[in-house]
C-alpha cells in the first residue's frame, strides 16, 4: 500500500473491511492490541492478518501462548486463500512460547526483570533471524499472568513494541478480557502502551448475538470509530456496519 505524501507507510491487513476502516491499513511498525472476550474472532483475525502478509511475501510469525500451534492449525477456518506451502517455505512460522520459556529456563511462575529482558531479546532475535514483517502474540494476557505487576507488564510490552518497531515489524498482541468487562485489557496497562486498539466483542440485541469490531485508537492514521458486525468465513473476515436502528446504545 503506497502512502500519500506525509502519511506513514501502511501494512495492509488484507482484510478488506478493516483496511477500509483504517484508510489503507495499519501504519507500518505499529503494535496493535487486538482485544476482546472469548469467541469474538480475535485469533482468526490475527491469523488472517499473517496469512495475507505471507501471501504477499512478507515473513510472518505467530507466537502461540495459550494453545499449541498444532491444535491451532487443526482448528483453523478452511480459508480458501490459505496455502500450506506458506508454512513449508517458512513464510509463515508458528512458535509455541511455552517451549521458548523452557529453552530459556523460565520455569518459575513469575518472571524477573532480567528474564523479561531475556524473553524480549529472544523474540526480537527470532523475528530478526526470520526477517519477520508481521508478528502476532496470542495471547499477551497469558504472558502478563507470568509478569504479575503493572510495572513488569509495562516494561515488557514497551520493550517488545520497541524491538519489533525497530525491525519495521507490524504486530498484533491478542488480549483477553472478561465478557462483561468494559475495559480494553485485563491488567489495564496494555492499551496505554499499544499504538492501536482493535476491540472485538459479542453484542446481544434482542436475543441475537452479533460479533462486533471497533477500532478504538490507531496512531499514525485516521480511522473510523464506528462499530461493525463481522463474520468469519472461508473467504476471510467480512465486515458490515452495525445497523443503528437496532442498536441498544
Amino acid at each position: 500500500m503506497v502512502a500519500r505524501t506525509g502519511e506513514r507507510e501502511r501494512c495492509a491487513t488484507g482484510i478488506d473491511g478493516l483496511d477500509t476502516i483504517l484508510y489503507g491499513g495499519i501504519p507500518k511498525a505499529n503494535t496493535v492490541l487486538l482485544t476482546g472476550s472469548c469467541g469474538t474472532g480475535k485469533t482468526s483475525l490475527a491469523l488472517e492478518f499473517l496469512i495475507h502478509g505471507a501471501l504477499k511475501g512478507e515473513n510472518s510469525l505467530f507466537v502461540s501462548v495459550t494453545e499449541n500451534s498444532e491444535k491451532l492449525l487443526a482448528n483453523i477456518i478452511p480459508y480458501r486463500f490459505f496455502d500450506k506451502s506458506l508454512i513449508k517455505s517458512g513464510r509463515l512460522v508458528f512458535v509455541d512460547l511455552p517451549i521458548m520459556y523452557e529453552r530459556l529456563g523460565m520455569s518459575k511462575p513469575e518472571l524477573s526483570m532480567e528474564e523479561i529482558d531475556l524473553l524480549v531479546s529472544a523474540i526480537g532475535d527470532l523475528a530478526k533471524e526470520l526477517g519477520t514483517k508481521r508478528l502476532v502474540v496470542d495471547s499477551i494476557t497469558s504472558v502478563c499472568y507470568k509478569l504479575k505487576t503493572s510495572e513488569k507488564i509495562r516494561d515488557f510490552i514497551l520493550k517488545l513494541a520497541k524491538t519489533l518497531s525497530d525491525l519495521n515489524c507490524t504486530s498484533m498482541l491478542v488480549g483477553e478480557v472478561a465478557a462483561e468487562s468494559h475495559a480494553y485489557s485485563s491488567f489495564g496497562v496494555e492499551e496505554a502502551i499499544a499504538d492501536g486498539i482493535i476491540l472485538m466483542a459479542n453484542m446481544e440485541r434482542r436475543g441475537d448475538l452479533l460479533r462486533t469490531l471497533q477500532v478504538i485508537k490507531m496512531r499514525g492514521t485516521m480511522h473510523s470509530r464506528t462499530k461493525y458486525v463481522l463474520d468469519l468465513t472461508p473467504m476471510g473476515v467480512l465486515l458490515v456496519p452495525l445497523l443503528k436502528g437496532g442498536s441498544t446504545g
Partner: protein
Amino acid sequence: MTDGPVGAQQIAAEIAETPPSSAISLQMSVDNYLDVIRGVVDLFANKNEMDTIYVTATISSDAIKRVLEALDIDSSRVYFVDCISHIMMGAPTLHDENTTLVESPTMLENLMLKVEYLIRRSQSKSKLVVIDSINSLAIHNNNWILSEFLHILVSGLRSRNAYTVILSVEEHSTPEINNMVNLVCDHGIRAGKQEG
C-alpha cells in the same frame, strides 16, 4: 412502475432492459408467486448464465427448492440465504453447499454478510440478488432498521455490479414499506396474471 400487471416472460424482459447494478422493486400478488420465480430465476438469471443469491425470509429454502423442482427450473446456480428455517426450528441438519443459514431475520447484518460471502465466492460474471420478501422482513424488523438495511445492502450490491430484485406482496404491503423500497430502487415492476 409498469402500467399493468405482467407475467413471467415480461418480468424477465423488463429486468433485462435495466443495466447491471440496477435495483428493481417487484410487486406481486400472492397468486403470482410462481410466475415471479420463473421470470426472475429461470427466464432472466439462468438464461443469462447468472448466479442467483436468493434471500428467503418467507418460506424455507427447502420449500423454494421444491418449487423450483416442480417448475422444472435448474437450481444449480441458485444460492440460498435462508433466514427463516432456524427460527422455525426446521434448519436442515445436512450441509448443503448452496444454502447458508442466518439464525433469524432480525440479524440483518448477518444477512448482508452472507450475501457478501456468496458474492465473493461466485465465479459468475453477473449476479442477481433476490430479497423474498420485504414484507416478511418487516414482520421481524422495524421500518428504521429495515430502511437502513436496504440502503446499505443495495448500495453495496450496486458497487459490485449485481442486480437486486426486491419482492413485495401487494396484499401485505403498507405505504411505509412501498416508500422504503421505492427509495432504493430505480425501477418498478408490477407482476400479475397475464391477460387473455
